[in-house]
Protein backbone atom coordinates (compact mmCIF):
# COMPACT_ATOMS: atom_id res chain seq x y z
CA UNK A 1 0.00 0.00 0.00
CA UNK A 2 1.28 3.45 -0.75
CA UNK A 3 0.16 7.04 -1.18
CA UNK A 4 -0.53 8.00 -4.80
CA UNK A 5 -1.54 11.58 -4.34
CA UNK A 6 -2.01 14.38 -1.79
CA UNK A 7 -4.29 17.31 -2.58
CA UNK A 8 -4.43 20.46 -0.45
CA UNK A 9 -6.66 23.49 -0.60
CA UNK A 10 -6.38 26.39 1.86
CA UNK A 11 -4.12 24.37 4.16
CA UNK A 12 -1.74 26.71 5.98
CA UNK A 13 0.43 28.44 3.34
CA UNK A 14 -1.00 26.32 0.49
CA UNK A 15 -3.86 28.67 -0.31
CA UNK A 16 -4.15 27.51 -3.92
CA UNK A 17 -5.28 23.98 -4.74
CA UNK A 18 -2.06 21.94 -4.86
CA UNK A 19 -1.52 18.32 -5.88
CA UNK A 20 1.53 16.14 -5.11
CA UNK A 21 1.73 12.99 -7.16
CA UNK A 22 3.84 10.54 -5.20
CA UNK A 23 6.03 7.58 -6.13
CA UNK A 24 6.00 4.32 -4.14
CA UNK A 25 9.74 4.89 -3.82
CA UNK A 26 11.50 7.83 -2.17
CA UNK A 27 10.11 11.36 -2.53
CA UNK A 28 12.24 14.25 -1.29
CA UNK A 29 10.84 17.74 -0.67
CA UNK A 30 13.26 20.68 -0.75
CA UNK A 31 13.19 24.48 -0.55
CA UNK A 32 14.25 27.49 1.54
CA UNK A 33 13.22 28.27 5.14
CA UNK A 34 9.55 29.00 5.62
CA UNK A 35 8.45 28.06 2.11
CA UNK A 36 5.99 25.38 3.27
CA UNK A 37 7.77 21.97 3.33
CA UNK A 38 6.75 21.02 6.88
CA UNK A 39 3.24 22.26 6.11
CA UNK A 40 2.98 19.43 3.58
CA UNK A 41 3.88 16.93 6.31
CA UNK A 42 1.26 18.55 8.56
CA UNK A 43 -1.39 18.24 5.83
CA UNK A 44 -0.72 14.52 5.44
CA UNK A 45 -0.77 14.01 9.17
CA UNK A 46 -4.01 15.93 9.55
CA UNK A 47 -5.91 14.17 6.77
CA UNK A 48 -4.88 10.81 8.28
CA UNK A 49 -6.68 11.80 11.47
CA UNK A 50 -4.27 13.72 13.70
CA UNK A 51 -6.22 15.42 16.49
CA UNK A 52 -3.40 17.06 18.42
CA UNK A 53 -3.13 20.73 17.50
CA UNK A 54 0.28 20.75 19.17
CA UNK A 55 1.65 18.02 16.85
CA UNK A 56 0.33 20.12 13.95
CA UNK A 57 2.34 23.09 15.28
CA UNK A 58 -0.69 25.28 15.95
CA UNK A 59 -2.41 26.64 19.03
CA UNK A 60 -5.98 26.21 17.75
CA UNK A 61 -7.44 24.02 15.01
CA UNK A 62 -8.32 26.99 12.82
CA UNK A 63 -4.56 27.78 12.61
CA UNK A 64 -4.65 25.17 9.85
CA UNK A 65 -6.78 27.32 7.55
CA UNK A 66 -4.95 29.78 5.30
CA UNK A 67 -5.04 33.02 7.29
CA UNK A 68 -4.09 35.50 4.59
CA UNK A 69 -1.06 37.01 2.92
CA UNK A 70 -0.06 40.39 1.49
CA UNK A 71 -2.42 40.17 -1.48
CA UNK A 72 -4.69 37.35 -0.36
CA UNK A 73 -7.62 37.27 2.02
CA UNK A 74 -7.95 34.52 4.64
CA UNK A 75 -10.05 31.54 3.59
CA UNK A 76 -13.14 30.20 5.32
CA UNK A 77 -12.18 26.53 5.24
CA UNK A 78 -9.46 24.05 4.30
CA UNK A 79 -9.71 20.67 2.58
CA UNK A 80 -7.09 17.95 2.21
CA UNK A 81 -7.44 14.62 0.39
CA UNK A 82 -5.06 11.67 0.35
CA UNK A 83 -5.46 8.88 -2.21
CA UNK A 84 -3.82 5.52 -1.53
CA UNK A 85 -3.21 2.55 -3.72
CA UNK A 86 -4.82 -0.34 -1.87
CA UNK A 87 -4.38 -3.18 -4.37
CA UNK A 88 -2.64 -5.27 -1.71
CA UNK A 89 -5.81 -5.22 0.40
CA UNK A 90 -3.74 -4.70 3.57
CA UNK A 91 -6.42 -2.63 5.30
CA UNK A 92 -8.92 -5.43 4.82
CA UNK A 93 -11.28 -3.24 2.75
CA UNK A 94 -12.68 -4.06 -0.62
CA UNK A 95 -11.33 -1.03 -2.51
CA UNK A 96 -8.37 -0.95 -4.93
CA UNK A 97 -7.97 2.70 -4.13
CA UNK A 98 -8.86 4.60 -0.94
CA UNK A 99 -9.36 8.35 -0.73
CA UNK A 100 -9.68 10.09 2.63
CA UNK A 101 -10.85 13.70 2.67
CA UNK A 102 -10.97 16.06 5.63
CA UNK A 103 -12.48 19.52 5.73
CA UNK A 104 -12.40 22.13 8.48
CA UNK A 105 -14.44 25.36 8.61
CA UNK A 106 -13.57 28.50 10.58
CA UNK A 107 -16.55 27.93 12.89
CA UNK A 108 -14.89 24.67 13.93
CA UNK A 109 -17.13 22.21 12.11
CA UNK A 110 -15.38 19.30 10.44
CA UNK A 111 -16.30 16.91 7.66
CA UNK A 112 -14.72 13.57 6.80
CA UNK A 113 -15.14 11.54 3.63
CA UNK A 114 -14.06 8.03 2.71
CA UNK A 115 -14.13 7.48 -1.04
CA UNK A 116 -16.40 10.51 -1.36
CA UNK A 117 -18.89 9.17 1.22
CA UNK A 118 -19.40 11.20 4.38
CA UNK A 119 -18.15 9.32 7.43
CA UNK A 120 -16.96 9.98 10.94
CA UNK A 121 -13.38 10.48 12.12
CA UNK A 122 -13.85 7.28 14.14
CA UNK A 123 -14.18 5.21 10.97
CA UNK A 124 -10.99 6.66 9.51
CA UNK A 125 -9.05 6.00 12.71
CA UNK A 126 -10.40 2.45 12.91
CA UNK A 127 -9.34 1.80 9.34
CA UNK A 128 -5.75 2.67 10.20
CA UNK A 129 -5.69 0.97 13.59
CA UNK A 130 -2.77 -1.41 14.18
CA UNK A 131 -1.08 -0.44 10.93
CA UNK A 132 1.15 2.18 12.52
CA UNK A 133 -0.11 4.69 9.96
CA UNK A 134 -0.10 8.26 11.31
CA UNK A 135 1.62 7.26 14.55
CA UNK A 136 4.09 9.75 16.00
CA UNK A 137 7.69 8.44 16.26
CA UNK A 138 6.82 5.63 13.89
CA UNK A 139 5.11 6.77 10.71
CA UNK A 140 5.83 10.48 11.27
CA UNK A 141 8.98 12.16 12.60
CA UNK A 142 8.43 15.91 12.91
CA UNK A 143 11.16 18.50 12.40
CA UNK A 144 13.56 18.60 15.35
CA UNK A 145 11.92 15.56 16.91
CA UNK A 146 14.17 12.65 15.91
CA UNK A 147 16.12 12.72 19.18
CA UNK A 148 12.92 12.52 21.24
CA UNK A 149 12.87 8.82 20.44
CA UNK A 150 15.88 8.53 22.76
CA UNK A 151 14.84 11.10 25.33
CA UNK A 152 11.65 9.58 26.52
CA UNK A 153 11.90 7.87 29.86
CA UNK A 154 12.26 4.07 29.87
CA UNK A 155 8.58 3.66 30.80
CA UNK A 156 7.41 5.88 27.92
CA UNK A 157 9.67 4.04 25.55
CA UNK A 158 7.86 0.90 26.58
CA UNK A 159 4.76 2.17 24.78
CA UNK A 160 6.65 2.62 21.52
CA UNK A 161 8.06 -0.87 21.91
CA UNK A 162 4.65 -2.35 22.45
CA UNK A 163 3.54 -0.58 19.30
CA UNK A 164 6.29 -2.26 17.31
CA UNK A 165 5.97 -5.59 19.11
Amino acid at each position, binding site marked *: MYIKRLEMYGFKSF*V*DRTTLELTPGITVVV*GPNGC*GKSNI*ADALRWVLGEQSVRLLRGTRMDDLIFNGAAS*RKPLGFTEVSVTMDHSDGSLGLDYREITVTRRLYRDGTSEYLLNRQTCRLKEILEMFMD*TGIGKEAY*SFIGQGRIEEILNSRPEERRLI*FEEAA
Partner: protein
Amino acid sequence: MGEKFAASFAVLNESFGLVFKELFGGGKSMLSLADPQNLLESGVEINAQPPGKRLQHLSLLSGGEKALAAIALLFSFLRVKPVPFCILDEIDTALDEANLARFNSYLQRLAGKIQFILISHRKKTMERADMLYGVTMEEPGVSKLISVRLGAATHLESSAG
Protein backbone atom coordinates in the same frame (compact mmCIF):
# COMPACT_ATOMS: atom_id res chain seq x y z
CA MET B 1 1.18 -11.23 27.44
CA GLY B 2 4.51 -10.80 29.15
CA GLU B 3 5.92 -13.69 27.13
CA LYS B 4 4.68 -12.21 23.88
CA PHE B 5 6.43 -8.96 24.75
CA ALA B 6 9.63 -10.82 25.66
CA ALA B 7 9.65 -12.56 22.30
CA SER B 8 9.10 -9.39 20.28
CA PHE B 9 11.59 -7.59 22.47
CA ALA B 10 14.25 -10.12 21.57
CA VAL B 11 13.49 -9.60 17.88
CA LEU B 12 13.65 -5.80 18.23
CA ASN B 13 16.89 -6.01 20.17
CA GLU B 14 18.53 -8.07 17.48
CA SER B 15 17.22 -5.74 14.79
CA PHE B 16 18.52 -2.67 16.63
CA GLY B 17 21.92 -4.30 17.04
CA LEU B 18 22.18 -4.93 13.30
CA VAL B 19 20.89 -1.56 12.10
CA PHE B 20 23.09 0.33 14.56
CA LYS B 21 26.20 -1.41 13.25
CA GLU B 22 25.25 -0.60 9.67
CA LEU B 23 24.55 3.07 10.32
CA PHE B 24 27.59 3.64 12.53
CA GLY B 25 29.88 1.48 10.45
CA GLY B 26 30.69 -0.58 13.54
CA GLY B 27 30.28 -0.30 17.29
CA LYS B 28 27.50 -2.04 19.18
CA SER B 29 24.21 -1.40 20.81
CA MET B 30 21.75 -3.12 23.04
CA LEU B 31 18.28 -2.69 24.40
CA SER B 32 17.69 -3.98 27.91
CA LEU B 33 14.73 -4.30 30.20
CA ALA B 34 15.00 -2.12 33.28
CA ASP B 35 13.19 -4.81 35.26
CA PRO B 36 13.46 -8.24 33.58
CA GLN B 37 11.44 -9.81 36.42
CA ASN B 38 8.48 -7.65 35.49
CA LEU B 39 7.91 -8.20 31.79
CA LEU B 40 4.47 -6.63 31.89
CA GLU B 41 5.61 -3.21 33.05
CA SER B 42 9.36 -2.92 32.76
CA GLY B 43 10.73 0.15 30.98
CA VAL B 44 13.27 -0.21 28.19
CA GLU B 45 16.84 1.08 28.39
CA ILE B 46 19.03 1.86 25.40
CA ASN B 47 22.80 1.33 25.32
CA ALA B 48 24.85 2.62 22.43
CA GLN B 49 28.56 2.36 21.79
CA PRO B 50 29.85 4.07 18.63
CA PRO B 51 32.85 2.36 17.00
CA GLY B 52 36.05 2.59 19.03
CA LYS B 53 34.32 4.19 21.98
CA ARG B 54 33.31 2.82 25.33
CA LEU B 55 29.73 1.93 26.18
CA GLN B 56 28.39 5.15 27.66
CA HIS B 57 25.17 6.71 28.83
CA LEU B 58 23.19 8.05 25.88
CA SER B 59 23.61 11.60 27.18
CA LEU B 60 27.36 11.49 26.57
CA LEU B 61 26.93 10.84 22.84
CA SER B 62 27.46 13.80 20.54
CA GLY B 63 24.58 15.61 18.80
CA GLY B 64 25.16 13.75 15.54
CA GLU B 65 25.66 10.40 17.28
CA LYS B 66 22.35 10.80 19.13
CA ALA B 67 20.52 11.61 15.92
CA LEU B 68 22.01 8.55 14.21
CA ALA B 69 21.22 6.29 17.18
CA ALA B 70 17.62 7.53 17.11
CA ILE B 71 17.43 6.84 13.37
CA ALA B 72 18.81 3.35 14.05
CA LEU B 73 16.07 2.75 16.61
CA LEU B 74 13.36 3.96 14.24
CA PHE B 75 14.70 1.88 11.35
CA SER B 76 14.98 -1.20 13.55
CA PHE B 77 11.24 -0.89 14.35
CA LEU B 78 10.38 -0.42 10.70
CA ARG B 79 12.38 -3.52 9.78
CA VAL B 80 10.48 -5.65 12.27
CA LYS B 81 7.03 -4.14 11.74
CA PRO B 82 6.95 -2.11 8.54
CA VAL B 83 4.46 0.72 8.20
CA PRO B 84 3.21 1.40 4.63
CA PHE B 85 4.59 4.94 4.49
CA CYS B 86 6.88 7.06 6.61
CA ILE B 87 7.23 10.87 6.58
CA LEU B 88 10.57 12.18 7.87
CA ASP B 89 11.09 15.92 8.32
CA GLU B 90 14.77 16.93 8.27
CA ILE B 91 16.04 13.98 10.35
CA ASP B 92 19.43 14.02 8.58
CA THR B 93 20.34 17.59 9.57
CA ALA B 94 22.89 16.75 12.29
CA LEU B 95 24.74 13.99 10.40
CA ASP B 96 28.23 14.48 9.00
CA GLU B 97 28.93 13.28 5.45
CA ALA B 98 30.11 9.80 6.43
CA ASN B 99 27.06 9.11 8.60
CA LEU B 100 24.78 10.71 6.01
CA ALA B 101 26.05 8.32 3.34
CA ARG B 102 25.34 5.27 5.51
CA PHE B 103 21.92 6.67 6.43
CA ASN B 104 21.01 7.06 2.78
CA SER B 105 22.20 3.57 1.82
CA TYR B 106 20.13 2.05 4.57
CA LEU B 107 17.09 4.12 3.59
CA GLN B 108 17.38 2.71 0.10
CA ARG B 109 17.21 -0.82 1.48
CA LEU B 110 14.03 -0.10 3.46
CA ALA B 111 12.49 1.76 0.51
CA GLY B 112 11.55 -1.53 -1.14
CA LYS B 113 8.93 -2.22 1.54
CA ILE B 114 8.13 1.28 2.80
CA GLN B 115 7.22 4.46 0.93
CA PHE B 116 9.35 7.34 2.22
CA ILE B 117 8.60 11.03 2.01
CA LEU B 118 11.54 13.09 3.24
CA ILE B 119 12.05 16.77 3.78
CA SER B 120 15.75 17.50 3.60
CA HIS B 121 18.32 20.08 2.62
CA ARG B 122 21.19 17.59 2.29
CA LYS B 123 22.51 17.00 -1.19
CA LYS B 124 23.26 13.29 -0.65
CA THR B 125 19.64 12.73 0.41
CA MET B 126 18.28 14.60 -2.61
CA GLU B 127 20.39 12.43 -4.88
CA ARG B 128 18.52 9.34 -3.61
CA ALA B 129 15.13 10.71 -4.57
CA ASP B 130 13.01 8.84 -7.09
CA MET B 131 10.94 12.01 -7.20
CA LEU B 132 11.93 15.50 -6.10
CA TYR B 133 9.58 18.35 -5.27
CA GLY B 134 10.64 21.93 -4.70
CA VAL B 135 8.54 24.32 -2.68
CA THR B 136 8.81 28.05 -3.25
CA MET B 137 7.15 31.18 -1.92
CA GLU B 138 7.60 33.70 -4.71
CA GLU B 139 4.34 35.36 -3.76
CA PRO B 140 4.90 36.24 -0.08
CA GLY B 141 3.03 33.91 2.27
CA VAL B 142 1.81 31.66 -0.58
CA SER B 143 3.44 28.24 -1.11
CA LYS B 144 3.84 26.86 -4.58
CA LEU B 145 4.97 23.39 -5.58
CA ILE B 146 7.31 22.67 -8.48
CA SER B 147 8.42 19.22 -9.49
CA VAL B 148 12.12 19.05 -10.19
CA ARG B 149 14.34 17.02 -12.53
CA LEU B 150 17.20 15.35 -10.68
CA GLY B 151 19.90 17.17 -12.63
CA ALA B 152 18.61 20.43 -11.18
CA ALA B 153 18.68 19.02 -7.65
CA THR B 154 22.36 19.64 -7.07
CA HIS B 155 21.61 23.26 -7.92
CA LEU B 156 18.89 23.38 -5.28
CA GLU B 157 21.17 22.17 -2.51
CA SER B 158 23.02 25.45 -2.84
CA SER B 159 19.81 27.02 -1.54
CA ALA B 160 20.32 24.94 1.59
CA GLY B 161 23.53 22.89 2.16
